[in-house]
Each structure stands twice: as C-alpha cells, then as structure tokens.
C-alpha cells in the first residue's frame, strides 16, 4: 500500500513532499523517543509521532521511512518543513491521537494483506 491510499482513506493533510506519496508503506512505528524509533523502526515504515522539531527529519531520512504523521493536529515547525521538503519526506497531519491513528493504519495495512 502506498502513502497516497493512506492519506485518502484517513483524511490526512499533507504538509510537504507530496511528490513522494507513491512511497510504499511496509508497516508503521509509533513513538516520540528518537532513540527508540532509530533502533526499532524499519525502512518503509510510516512514523507516527508528536515530535514536530526538525530532528525527526534526520531520523526518518536515516531510517528511510515512507513518511511522518503528526498526531493531534500538531503542525511541523518551519525548519522541519524545509528539511523534510529537501529530503523528500512527506509530513502529514492527523487530528486523531496516536492510539487511534495507529489502529486505523494497522487495520488498513492488514486488510490489504
């Protein structure tokens, strides 16, 4: 399943790098501790987080995540947006909280299999 499908199904708002919405999503990881995400997430994951600062882009880029979803309608800071656009990592915003958006994405990915 690609990001575009997830964006449509869940009504996510795309904030940058919409050219990368064809990225394939291999799974997801939910977390706000950067070391935890660094150690345990995988390439192609969609990362669900509350962190809005620019260091999330470095982690997502190093781990080759498909994209980042910010929860609770949190907005990325301007430098986060600039870096993510440069790295072509889509940042999407959801008005749902972490548990809910994670569950919905999990169900979407499971349904596809």
């Amino acid at each position, binding site marked *: 399943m690609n990001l575009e499908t997830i964006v449509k199904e869940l009504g996510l708002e795309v904030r940058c790098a919409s050219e990368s919405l064809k990225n394939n999503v291999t799974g997801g990881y939910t977390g706000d501790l950067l070391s935890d995400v660094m*150690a345990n997430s995988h*390439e192609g994951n969609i990362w669900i987080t509350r*962190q809005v*600062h*620019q260091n999330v882009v*470095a982690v997502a880029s*190093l781990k080759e995540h498909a994209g980042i979803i910010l929860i609770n309608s949190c907005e990325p800071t301007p430098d986060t947006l600039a870096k993510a656009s440069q790295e072509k990592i889509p940042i999407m915003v959801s008005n749902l909280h972490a548990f809910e958006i994670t569950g919905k994405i999990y169900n979407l990915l499971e349904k596809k299999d």
Partner: protein
Amino acid sequence: MVVSKKLAMPVQETDHTAYKRSFYIEGGNFNYAGIVSTSIKSILKQMDFSGDVIRKCAIVCYESEINVVSYARKGVVNLMIDPDTIKIEVVDEGPGIPNIEQAMQQGYSTADQKIREMGFGAGMGLHNIKSYSDAFIISSELGKGTRLLMTINIKQ
C-alpha cells in the same frame, strides 16, 4: 565492550585502511544534529555495503552524534574502512562521563529538560551503540572528553 577511564589514544590508520574521512560536530547545535550520520550513510550506500551493515552504522553513528551535540563542546567523527570492518570513531571535547558503567545502563540519563522534550535523553543511546556494534570501546576522562570506537563487521 571495553571500558576505560583514561582517554584512549585515537585509533591509527593502518596500511589496510582503504578509506578515511573525518567530520566535525558542533556541540549544542541541534539544527545540524544528524548531518554527519546522513553523510556517512550516503557514503556507505555509494560503496554498496549491505543494508544490514549500513543500518548498524547509521544507528551507532547517529546516537554518538546526538551525544556530542547534547553534552560536549565539539567532536570529530572518523570513518575508517578496511577490507573487513567499518570503524566509526567519535572523539569529543566535553565534560567526560563520571561513571561509564552507570551511563551504559538502559534508562540512565543526565539530559536536561530541553533535550528530553525533543525526544532525546531517554538513556538509550549508549545502550543502542553497544547493541548495534560488533565491537565497542568507550573511554572517558573527566574534564577532557569521551572517545567511542564502534566496529561493524562487513560480513555479517
């Protein structure tokens, strides 16, 4: 893992070192945190190392880089590649670690509130570095700094 309370001498380039490059890290500047790790990852990708090797290098390098940015005044990362191993050496000028055994424990951290709010300082960094290195040497001297040497085997 080797632990030393005296700051060890920097690792020396040998006749077998096929590639060496150094990178500078500015302490306290989170705007550029991760930039060295990103550069090293892209070099290793261009050299066509396996995904597993690159993943391990990226994790140990990123965690070390964040430690320098969080705690030290400045630091240098030396990337050395020989036929069997990739070595990543991180040497910083900073306060040093008073108790290395304690710092290695998962969950132990001296990070301040500002660092924790960004999602760092959870006491996982050194633990992750040890877990993802095939060999790990740490030495630190109070008032001088800390040196980490992570070795990743090219054949996993």
